Structures are given as structure tokens and as C-alpha cells.
């Protein structure tokens, strides 16, 4: 497939568990973004990577959230000690260049439910 893929599509976790969400961006895309979309809301920015460098993590809600992109392609968003307020859809988007106005291509998201 040529699009952005995310796995798993659905994740149910018990409160306190750790989870890892994977994003496979479009091949060759320099920029990678993670967003959190709560029910009935628009996506909210979490973090940004340019290749393997995490240039902006200002949107991460707490130090329980950690993201990496070690080889500049696949990215993983990890949430430690999940809480109920972490329940949301986590969207990954990639873009071919690092400049403004470039189209971001979104994956289908991972729906996380914390019980």
C-alpha cells in the first residue's frame, strides 16, 4: 500500500498498562506527526519528527508519553501507565518535505480504550 498505515487499529488496555502504537509513513517522507483525537474533537498535535530527529514534543500531555523514530521511517508512540483520559484515537501523518503548507497524509488511526 502507498498510504500511511498504523497498527494496531484498536487497542484495549487496562489502566496502568503500557501500550505501543506503530506508524508506517509513506516511504521517503521526511516529516512525521502524531496527533491525538478525543471523541467529538479535532486532532491535537502531540509531536513532530524530521527524519529521526524529534524537533517538537510540546504537545505530549505528560512524561508518560514517549515517541521515537530511530531510523527515520517507522515511528512508535509509547504510553506508559495508561490512564482513562488517554482514551482517544491516535493519528499519525507524514509529509514529503519539512516546509509549511505541505500536505499531510494521515493514517487511519489507532483507537485506544483504557478501562
Amino acid at each position: 500500500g502507498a498510504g500511511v498505515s498504523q497498527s494496531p487499529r484498536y487497542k484495549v488496555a487496562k489502566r496502568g498498562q503500557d501500550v505501543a502504537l506503530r506508524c508506517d509513513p509513506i516511504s521517503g517522507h521526511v516529516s512525521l506527526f502524531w496527533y491525538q483525537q478525543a471523541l467529538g474533537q479535532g486532532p491535537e498535535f502531540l509531536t513532530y519528527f524530521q527524519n529521526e530527529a524529534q524537533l517538537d514534543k510540546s504537545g505530549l500531555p505528560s512524561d508518560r508519553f514517549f515517541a521515537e523514530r530511530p531510523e527515520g521511517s517507522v515511528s512508535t508512540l509509547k504510553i506508559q501507565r495508561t490512564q482513562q483520559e488517554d482514551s482517544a484515537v491516535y493519528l499519525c501523518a507524514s509529509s514529503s518535505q519539512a516546509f509549511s503548507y505541505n500536505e499531510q497524509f494521515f493514517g487511519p488511526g489507532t483507537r485506544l480504550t483504557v478501562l
Partner: protein
Amino acid sequence: TQLLEQSPQFLSIQEGENLTVYCNSSSVFSSLQWYRQEPGEGPVLLVTVVTGGEVKKLKRLTFQFGDARKDSSLHITAAQPGDTGLYLCAGGRSGGYNKLIFGAGTRLAVHP
């Protein structure tokens, strides 16, 4: 804090009707993008506007960026059931990467 306010939140209309969705902010953005999101999928870009006063047309959809680059509108002519979905506006800041600030969205339902 929602920097971009969208209205209305919900819109239910009959096929063939016209509609306008608004996206307003007190902040200036260097660009404004409109996305459409279907259930279970990520947002898909419809258009990007970057110049104050700019108008872009995409078939039956007309997008406008306000002169002061603080607001935008999306007008759909003769809506069809296939237009049903969540419409999101997103503002971008100048310089560097395109970090987007999204509105909460307008959920549109077009009934045959």
C-alpha cells in the same frame, strides 16, 4: 483551548441544499487547510489557502480565506449524500514545519 472555532457543530440537510461552514479565530494563520474525515479513517486534505481573501473552488465546494487570515469558510452547493462526513479546518503557522491547529469540526449529514 480551541484556537479555531468551527460552526455549526452539526448540520443535517436534504440533498440539493446549499450550506456554509465557518472557521474562526482571533489568531492570524499563515495557511488554512480544510480536511474531510470519514468514520474510522484519518482526515483527507481538501484544500490549502494561504493568501488573505483567497477563494478556491473544488467542483461544488468553495473555500475562502478571510482578508485578515483569521477566518475561513467552506460553501457546498447542491449537497449530495456523498458529502456526508466530518469537516475540519486547520491553521498553520509560518516558518518551518506545518504544525497544524485543528478546529473541533462540523459534522455534516446529507439525506437523500
